[in-house]
């Protein structure tokens, strides 16, 4: 039960701080017996995808001549993923990132990349905690025989 409470607090905290928005609730609503691990699946996908993109972005921005179109494409992808998951803050930072991209401001991009990274890792750690807690909760509901 403690896990459930913890989970609740975590979730409401994530909503309250604007880390997540309604879209995540939509996701939760999509989870049903036919797809019991839907949220976990999507979240894992998002985390992997996000990590990859952030890695790519760091690589791209590290080059002396930055290909802003490519950067923009990656950021767009990350924005799309975060919008789907409801990772509001990452999404907002991505929007900002794209502005810098369009402005071809490398410093701005680097700055926002840091912000995106922070937001993303923050979210990822919270997601991981969430998934663990969910497992615990499920385990307590369906104790192993």
């Amino acid at each position: 039960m403690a896990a459930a409470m913890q989970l609740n607090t975590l979730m409401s905290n994530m909503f309250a701080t604007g880390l997540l928005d309604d879209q995540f609730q939509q996701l939760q609503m999509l989870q049903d017996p036919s797809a019991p691990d839907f949220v976990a699946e999507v979240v894992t996908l998002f985390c992997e995808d996000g990590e990859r993109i952030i890695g790519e972005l760091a690589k791209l921005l590290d080059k002396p001549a930055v290909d802003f179109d490519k950067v923009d494409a990656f950021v767009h992808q990350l924005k799309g993923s975060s919008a789907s998951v409801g990772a509001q803050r990452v999404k907002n930072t991505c929007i900002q990132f794209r502005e810098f991209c369009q402005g071809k401001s490398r410093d701005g991009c680097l700055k926002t990349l840091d912000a995106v990274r922070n937001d993303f890792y923050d979210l990822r750690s919270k997601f991981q905690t969430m998934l663990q807690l969910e497992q615990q909760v499920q385990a307590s509901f369906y104790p192993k025989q």
Partner: protein
Amino acid sequence: MGSGSKLGKKEDGGRGMEKEAKQQQQLQLRQRHAARRGRRPLAALAFVAMAVACSAAVHWQLRRETMERAELRLVSMCEERARMLQEQFGVTVNHVHALSILISIFHFEKNPSAIDQDTFAKYTAMTSFERPLLNGIAYAERIFPHEKEMFERKHGWIMKTMNREAAPLQEEYAPVIFSQDTVSYLARMDMMSGEEDRENILRARTTGKPVLTNPFRLLGSNHLGVVLTFAVYRPNLPADASVEQRVEATAGYLGGAFDVETLVENLLSKLAGNQDILVNVYDVTNASEPMAMYGSQTPDDKVGLLHVSMLDFGDPFRRHEMRCSYTQKPPLPWSAISNPLGTFVIWMLVGYIICAAWSRYDKVTEDCRKMEELKTQAEAADIAKSQFLATVSHEIRTPMNGVLGMLDMLLGTDLTMTQKDFAQTAQGCGKNLIRLINDVLDRAKFEAGRLELEAVPFDLRSLLDDVISLFPSKLKEKSIELAVFVCDDVPKLVIGDPWRFQQIVTNLVGNAVKFTERGHVFVRVSLAEQSNVETCRVPNVTLNGKDCKVESTANGAFNTLSGFQAADERNSWEYFKLLLSDKELPSNELEGEKCNQMDADQVTLMISIEDTGVGIPLHAQDRVFTPFMQADSSTSRNYGGTGIGLSISKCLAELMGGQISFTSRPSIGSTFTFSAVVKRASEDTSSDSERSLCEALPTAFRGMKAILVDGKPVRSAVTRYHLNRLGITVQVVNNMSMGVQAFGQNGATESREKPSMLFIQNDIWRPETDIQLLNRLHALRMNGQVHELPKLILLVTSEADKEKYGSTFNAVLCKPIRASTIASCLQQLLQVEIPVRKENQNRPSFLRNLLVGKNILVVDDNKVNLRVAHAALKKYGAKVHCVESGKDAISLLQPPHFFDACFMDVQMPEMDGFEATRQIREMEKKANEEKREQSTSAEGSTSADWHLPVLAMTADVIQATYDKCIKSGMDGYVSKPFDEQQLYQAVSRLVVGTTDPAP
């Protein structure tokens, strides 16, 4: 905290570039200023140089003029002297000439000679004033060598040469025989012995004219001088004698020394200005070697000013000239210095003025720029404030909604009374907070200029009904009447922003209810044109605070809704009647239909909310619309509230193209009036869009009749208005007995014609007497005169009365009355079947109906998106297939395929959604053509063309994207992440648009 930091970052990102650009602009401006300032010393220098040049030019000009004048003067002075010298000289020469003639006559014609040395000396001495220039004169006789001895003997002396020697033998001799005393040293001298004299003598006798020697130092005075020699001829010489004749006739020579120096000295001393002028006289017979006759021998090098005048002393062989120059340079006139100086000073002054003006201009522009900067800063700060407010309000609202939702859920659980009470209180507070935040948000939005109005058709009447239904609990506590009246002229449907409209009305009514303890709150809507007519027709318009006479009925009550006095008597019956006068009974027709035919598209509505509350104190009236301002602090203590509502109402009214104003009299009441411009909506546009906003009134009561017993005309008009909306014809009577009478009169045969209802106002009802009247009605029925008794309905203000009269009447209606409450009440009474309108189909289930079993292809390169879309569509029962690129999608969608729809991401690497769709459409076209060929050959089997519905999935739903979607052959778009409502719309449009593709 999280929201705060995010907010900061957003600001940074959004404004960064703008700010940078602005800074750059300012930098440029400053640089330009600096450049201008840097160029200034140069300009000043140039200016000074110009001033100096100008002064110098003036100076030189003046100088030149002076020089010219001096030269002119010199010329005239020189010429004058020359002429005088010449004249004097001439006079002397003439006299010598005369003397020669004298000698020729008295010496040669007389024999013996009439002249001897003494006579000559005496005569010449006495006539020397005639020859002021000659210091002496002597006569030498021409002697040939053969005459020499005779001559010497005759005179008794021997000729001597100039050197006091005995004269040697020579061709001719010219011994001086007569001499003036002053030159007595010349006596006996042979003039021919001197080289100069000899030459002179020879020249004189050939020319017959006076001749001059070169200047030389005279023997006596040591002054410079010349010797004048004049030939004396024998008297018989003809005037036109030849040279030989003349030589022949020469008898002797008259000579004298001109003391030129004295001569010129004397002459000059007689003339003015001789101090200034330096005169030199030269003999220039030999031009290369001028010989000085007068003046300093060394000619000064002052070439500056020199004038040369020719002198003619009558000797054709010799030439003389006079050279004049100034003794000293002509002094510069003061003006030559002062004028340029003055000019310079003037230049400098002008320069200073320009410089001062310039610097002043600079200062002003700099100040102006600073002001601009400050202004932009202030504006930016203002916008930032508004944005901050908007954002913060929004950020607060989100968690607050969570809190409220949780409280709602909490209330749904099993709670003890205390817990429930706590939770309810918390919820109430939360709701208040949300309302306040919404208000602040609105206000901030308005200030930031981001408040936009919608334009949707809505029914004003039902909207107002909804508004008054919000206040029952408060009304019941206070027992005040709340009523709505909408003029018949007001269109049934108008286009505007119903929520904002409702917000204003709710706010104003809320205020009115809050500040009113007794009496009424009356909302009246009319067209602005009508209101104008009203005020024109009735001249005495009230002004704020002024005590105007309000017409009252005999019993002391005012002719208003509740009988209490109102601040603005425009709602009193006298005025109100005018609104109704045009169409006393609007009959069964739907109200407003008439005005729909009016040509104007826009109508201005006047909405007035009248209350009989405490009113607004005079001193507070001018700041009623200032945000967060209440009449005074006690107001908020007594009544609560923040005072932001009115200011928002004002903003909204202005946004709607109207105004808001009020009339208020303390302790009598206030009337707030606002106008709003709305569009008329034609009936057909209303068909489905407004359905969600207002439930249509039942039409089952059309054509029924009712009698209304009400003593107050305004109130009866309101009641009639509501009944009319239901299609019920109303007859108004003043009291109960008249009501019963009216009922009796109308005892027509057909029940439909008869009034089937009797509405009785609470305060008209006198239980003691009116019961009897009712009894009479019952009696009528007993007698069979009336088949059916009318339904008796009592209109009451408070819930308490409902209990009291429940037994007597068929129904008791509690105010505020609304068309819908009347309708439901009547429906119960008359057991009229009202067809229940079907609820809007449950959308999720509807969507499920649309999508269930359908094969749907989702194309997105983003796995996360793909997964979510998959799950979302699956929820509605669709069979979802996912691919990650446009190419895969194309290969899957090669006709024939089994997909019913495709959701396509727009932005994908390699091949984006637009391109993929284009290719899909192309493939379909090809397939269709092939199929057509087959069908023409196979005959008959006309299967549908391939057209796969393709919906774009896009995050930024802007018009441009939409246009692009349509252009590339897509059928619509849905926003990412899926929004149920939108998905429903898009899918249903597809289903409606294309006939069911799969049977």
